[in-house]
């Protein structure tokens, strides 16, 4: 895994938020790093391991164990389909299939131009609004196939405009 992205002191800035650091801060630090980089670059994991005095293997193990962390670059935008039970019985799988058809990528993947990541989430706990889709973290409840197609189209359109 090679990572050409330079972190330009951004990792150090995140780590500085944990002055009394211990291994227990690892998961929180990874969250902050991901908020900064949209994924976890290898260099960031290495700096974190050195800072917390943990084996790199442990840091990498944690970064790849949890579904919430990503070691590959992610899209500018994220479209997340909630696959909770309540959403499932209200038709979430069909929404996801349609999204995959519309975007040409499978859940978990990112478009080659890094404009969009499509993913599923187990449940975001907004079950009364199912089926639910999150676009860049914003909730859109009672989703229909037609609305979803339009939302994603609008999202990517905006990108193309100067």
């Amino acid at each position, binding site marked *: 895994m090679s990572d050409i992205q330079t972190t330009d002191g951004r990792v150090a800035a995140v780590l500085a938020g944990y002055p009394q650091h211990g291994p227990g801060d690892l998961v929180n630090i990874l969250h902050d790093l991901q908020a900064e980089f949209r994924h976890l670059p290898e260099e960031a994991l290495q700096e974190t391991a050195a800072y917390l005095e943990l084996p790199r293997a442990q840091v990498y193990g944690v970064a790849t164990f949890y579904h919430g962390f990503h070691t590959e670059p992610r899209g500018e935008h994220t479209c997340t389909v909630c696959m909770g039970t309540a959403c499932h019985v209200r038709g979430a799988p069909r929404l996801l299939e349609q999204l995959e058809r519309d975007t040409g990528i499978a859940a978990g993947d990112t478009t080659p131009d890094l404009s969009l990541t499509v993913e599923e989430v187990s449940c975001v706990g907004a079950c009364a*609004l199912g089926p639910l889709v999150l676009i860049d973290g914003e909730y859109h409840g009672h989703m229909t196939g037609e609305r979803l197609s339009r939302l994603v189209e609008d999202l990517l359109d905006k990108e193309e405009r100067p």
Partner: protein
Amino acid sequence: MSTRLADPRALGHRRGAAVAARATHDKVIAVCGGTGCRAQGAMKVFAALAAEMDAHGTDATVAMRATGCHGFCERGPLVLLLPEGVLYQHVKVEDAAEIFEKTLLGGEVLERLLCEDPATGLRHRTEQEMPFYHHQQRVVLSDTGQLDPTSIDDYIALGGYSALVRALEMGPEAVLEEVKRSGLRGRGGAGFPAGRKWEACRHAQGDLRYVVCNADEGDPGAFMDRSILEGNPHCVLEGMTIGALAMGAREGYVYVRQEYPLAVEHLSAAIERSRELGLLGDGILGSELTFDVRVSRGGGAFVCGEASAMMASLEGRRGVPHRRLIHLSEHGLWGRPTNVNNVETWANVPHILLRGADWFRSIGTEGSTGTKIFSLVGMVNNTGLVEVPMGMTLRQIIFDTGGGIPGGKAFKAVQTGGPSGGCLPADKLDLPVDFDTLVAEGSMMGSGGMIVMDEETCMVDVAKYFLRFLASESCGNCTSCRDGLTILHDLLGDITEGRGTRETIALVEQVADTVEATSLCALGTSAVNPVLSTLRYFRDEYLAHVDDKRCPAGVCKALISFSIDAELCNGCMLCARRCPQDAVAGERKQPHTIDQELCIKCGICKDVCKRDAVLVQ
């Protein structure tokens, strides 16, 4: 000037001032600021109402509050007008001016914004008139709709932290005794008596001990803990502080799912405010109690709801459960005595201390005291959060509070207990919901997810859904769980895709037994419940899939086909335009047909048809 509250008297003064501040307003506009209502634009409605208030210059007499969750999320954004108690649903920004002028200033109720009961068509004015609220008994959720979760003074005004004062007066032993006597059992699913766990932690050897709040609410279809943390974070902190007093802990952690950003935000703010007032930190309220709380975000792993996996995650390791030869109460976080309770359990503690164990025991049943919050969701009319005394029947919850099944469809099953629970059919609807009854029937009450399913839900597909979830959430430590769940998922895939035989079903049962018997933690041992319970109660549906290659609910794609009823179709061409495969043919105003070769069974034609002319067979 220091804002620290030096002693209980200072808290009393602060309360007096907070109560007085709330009383200066004649009227209150309470906009629900829970995640459900926010997702539907509640904060924009809040801003629009605030702008109206500015324009009218009535801010001296009218207070505005973005409160915690009111529970009736499906009808959001909800706006509650006090003191009349009028509740408006589905409020839009455009409604703000009218609400302000007509209802608030003119006293006129806007009929169109009142909640309509889908069963009777009646429009109800207040929460209490609505069947959804009428059958509830709100204890833990009693204050969430009344207070601004970001204001510690709101919580104090409503009596907050007086349970802590009472606990400090009683002393650790008496507090422990009160919690034990209340019969409080853990709300996270297992139902272990909280008092006994506290006692073990208190008496365990060690210099440092920890209390942990499990807010890793991972069961899909459940959001009780999310709403408590978002809507009333101080009651959880107060409960934990009382627990720390009883157990002699100095540090606490709240382990929150990363999927709950608003809960993290409100909780973190609440901790800051509590520290400023000296309700967390050294010498709380002038006593010898020292206790502080940190927030730790989860990484998105279901298994971390398991306490030993959570300890690993808190210690910065992969969330893999380990064998608990020694209880966590003796050897938990960093090897020290640790007590873990979930959000709802902690949130009950202040109420028990204030109103007493006898009061708590008077609610619910003998073995399951108190109330329980359920997330009543899926194919049910009134979806949202309900809090009812334990012992209420499934029928009462789903039909009286939930208003039954939408669209005149038939009830098929209710799924409780999350991925560890099971699906119960209609003839089990009169069972009381408590910690023990549903277990005997192959399900469990669990943490409170209650997903209602109608006749268009395929139970084999539901079982496959849970196996897919659990197979992906297995930590991979035990072979039986890691591989067994994948095998089970594939076998159910054979059944839903038309390759299954009766031998497939027999193999499913055999593998399920092995996974149950040989997995280490509860994720594995209970993972087979959804498949075993559906096999137990819906075996006919499995047999239809393997014998007749038919999915009676019309869900499993390989076994169904879409066609158009020529009698009903009026040739509007809507389905033809929307079909992604161009599989629908037909002239305008002529009945359409579907080319089975091209059809991918995406179901869009059925969704868009206004005449129900698309048939699934």
